[in-house]
């Protein structure tokens, strides 16, 4: 059986030696990018979902705001402000992703 073992090893050694190893292209360095991208993607998803909720279910948003018992002027200002903040958040994250991909 030892002979078989030797012959098998010799056979595979020949086979491995006969293979050509091409020059390596060094893989990209692993940076902290991926870790950052997780929360960025979550934030972006939350912004998009928030915007969708505002556009598709305005009554829910309105009810929630009214429950906060805000003065009317603050309520109106807040109501206008939130979509703008969400929109800017999405734009910011999209720009940031674009820069990182470049």
């Amino acid at each position, binding site marked *: 059986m030892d002979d078989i073992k030797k012959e098998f090893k010799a056979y*595979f050694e*020949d086979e491995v030696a006969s293979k050509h190893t*091409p020059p390596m292209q060094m893989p990209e360095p692993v940076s902290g990018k991926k870790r950052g991208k997780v929360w960025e993607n979550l934030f972006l998803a939350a912004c998009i979902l928030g915007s969708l909720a505002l556009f598709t279910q305005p009554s829910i948003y309105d009810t929630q705001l009214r429950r906060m018992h805000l003065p009317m002027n603050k309520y109106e200002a807040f109501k206008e402000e939130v979509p703008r903040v969400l929109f800017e958040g999405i734009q910011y994250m999209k720009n940031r992703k674009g820069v990182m991909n470049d």
Partner: protein
Amino acid sequence: MSDDSVKELYRKWQREKSERARQDFFSAAWTRYHSRLQVFLTPWLGRGAECEDRVSEILLGAFERIETYNSRYAFSTWIYNLARKRCIDGLRKKRFVTEELAADHGGTGETPESLYMRNEDKRLVGEAINRLSAEDRELVFLYFYEEMKYREIAGITGKPLGTVKFRMSEIRKQMKSELSGSFV
């Protein structure tokens, strides 16, 4: 360059975090495992130039997931396991059926490796190996060439330890009877 040396270069890279150490590690791993993986993955990839390209892709893909390697264990176990999975997943995506390939692999005629045979014994061994199924061939490669333990082989191939032992015992019997007339 042994597997331990590759592992040591990995540890050095992790300690130093330098670009030089990173390059040294990847170069060593590439040099040691590219040709070995070509032979190991032969049952699934065949022997052509496509095999070489596919192994390059698989190795680079594995390097991108290097953070999943735990240097307490052998680097060879990690790389063979990952390469095997990637290779088989790639084939599944192409809708190849592994079993069909394995069956096709029971070659009957001349094979390229016969060109490298230096004597009759090696030719017989090559033929015996080519008659093995893809799954048995990878066991033989890991056991006889890489001299891995059954437990490591089970980890790489995803088979239960008992199955690996049983298959190896069967392969040994088969080889003994097939090659008994030559050099046993």
